[in-house]
């Protein structure tokens, strides 16, 4: 988001941080459910909300929010870049620049790694501390795109305890060579710990939000399931702005915790989070899956 001055207010429920520090941002466990929730108004983060401001339903049943926090835990950012032949040239140079600029936005306790998506998937560099210059010089672009396979691979990697997981993918939205069908990637998103954002350059940028190709529909579903979103940006706009927006939004999101009433039944749990006290743009993962 360009030029947005987001206010961050840490709302720390005593003990909640310590509890959160023992597990990833999202994982359905016996200990309860944690959901990352972004609350915005006019493009700016809404600060100062407490548990009583939120309503949450799990498969239609109203839940009691046990704690709300704005997390100060370190962030592990996975950048997932489409490095197929279609981005060669100027777009590749922009991507390199954006990776370097994004690393600058991270705190030293945060980390960033980069996975390249061509027909083959490869970790270009592993986690490195925020604020250091990532080795992007060797990035090259060629071949096809295994977009869905890349997203699935990134979502299947386990996060470390005491760290929050964010995945931001930049792609032209076309998948040419994935083995996984769309349904599998959507399903994996339901189990993933990370919040996933996807950035797609398209003529018209944000005003082109109505684009509804099958790939866009799939990517919208995948991101929404994790509490992320699809960013449409103008092809000429810096990708680093979208990276920065995704990162800032993640940082300023609330983490709601609740213990579902009754047993955690296997299957998909639809979750709805609302903030009835205001006209806010509330975004949270659409649900989670419990294995049979």
């Amino acid at each position: 988001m360009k030029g947005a001055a987001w206010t961050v207010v840490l709302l720390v429920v005593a003990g909640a941080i310590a509890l959160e520090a023992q597990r990833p941002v999202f994982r359905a466990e016996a200990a309860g459910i944690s959901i990352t929730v972004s609350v915005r108004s006019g493009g700016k983060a809404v600060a100062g909300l407490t548990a009583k401001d939120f309503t949450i339903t799990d498969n239609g049943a109203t839940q009691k929010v046990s704690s709300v926090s704005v997390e100060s835990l370190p962030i592990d950012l996975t950048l997932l870049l489409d490095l197929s032949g279609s981005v060669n040239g100027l777009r590749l140079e922009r991507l390199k620049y954006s990776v370097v600029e994004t690393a600058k936005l991270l705190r030293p306790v945060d980390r960033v790694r980069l996975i390249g998506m061509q027909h083959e998937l490869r970790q270009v560099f592993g986690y490195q501390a925020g604020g250091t210059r990532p080795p992007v010089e060797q990035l090259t672009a060629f071949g096809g795109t295994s977009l869905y396979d890349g997203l699935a691979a990134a979502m299947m990697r386990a996060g470390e305890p005491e760290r929050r997981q964010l995945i931001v993918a930049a792609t032209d939205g076309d998948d040419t060579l994935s083995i996984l069908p769309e349904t599998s990637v959507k399903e994996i998103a339901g189990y993933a710990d990370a919040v996933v954002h996807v950035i797609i350059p398209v003529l018209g940028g944000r005003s082109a939000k109505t684009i509804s190709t099958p790939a866009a529909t799939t990517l919208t579903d995948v991101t929404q399931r994790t509490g992320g979103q699809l960013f449409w940006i103008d092809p000429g706009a810096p990708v680093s702005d979208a990276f920065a927006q995704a990162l800032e939004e993640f940082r300023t999101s609330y983490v709601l915790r609740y213990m579902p009433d009754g047993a955690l039944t296997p299957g998909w749990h639809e979750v709805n989070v609302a903030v009835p006290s205001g006209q806010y743009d509330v975004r949270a993962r659409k649900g989670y899956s419990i294995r049979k």
Partner: protein
Amino acid sequence: MRWVAAALLSFVATQAPERPWVAEWLKEFAGDSRGAVIARMNKIDSLKVLEVDLDRMSENIPATLALPADQARRLAAAFATEAVFAKFEQSQSAAKLIEWACRQIRRIQQPGPYEEQWHLAAFALLGGTADPNAIDAHIAHMRLQFPNEPRLLLQRGIAEELRASRFAFGKGTVPFDLPRRLEEAAKRFTEAAAVESTRGEALLRLGHVELSRDRPDAALAALNTAEPALGDRDLVYLARLFRGMALERLGRVDEARAAFESALKARPDTQSASIALAAVLFRTTDRDRANTIVNDLLSRERQVNDPWWVYPPGDFRLVEARMTSLRRALK
């Protein structure tokens, strides 16, 4: 006006090439320096140049090479084919150059083993252009000289499946008639499965088409009978991979996992089966093992060649072997 156009075309077609090196390279290729010319093909910036200049020379090939007509045309076709092999990523010009070479081959009165090898090499190269229309056109051309070639039936299915593949339609949209195309591809592969020499590959491809049609039962039926008819390790890998996908969609998760593991025995460390195996583990029983598989996969400097990457473009996977056979047949 038509005769004016024809005269103009004829005039253009008999012009000398704009770039003298094209004729010089062709003469060298026809002489004693074939290997040296092949080694130089990578330096061609644009196949379009070759396409235009060879087209201009079409009628003068025998005279240019001072060879009997059939021999000259074989050599000229081989020359163009080598250029495409070196630069097949320039797909539009590549397809046109193959068609130019095909015109030389079609003019040979008594086609023999060389012409047959050439047509098969052409299918492999046209697969690399990912142009199903060019494959269809070439099927018609080969049929003129080799009506009984068993792979023609298989090629018809490959072209139709390619039309229905993300690999070919690429950007943004799905063809409006996707179901019809998939149905047509299934029909063509079913026909090809009746031919003994193409039975295994036809069943493998039929299985994949049925998966695309969301008919995992039909896919499994085809794939269960495909493997015994397959001798190629890459195709065995694909059959096991697709079988795992069909089983997974049928909810037979343990069997799916076993099928993916068996695919990885045929081709260890391959990306597509690794991802498919990790995905089924992640969603069902073993998140930790899925994590290990994905971490191992991503940490490799380069992935091993994956037969899945060259599945959509059909015979392209055979291009090296076909070019080797073609060179041998030209000697």
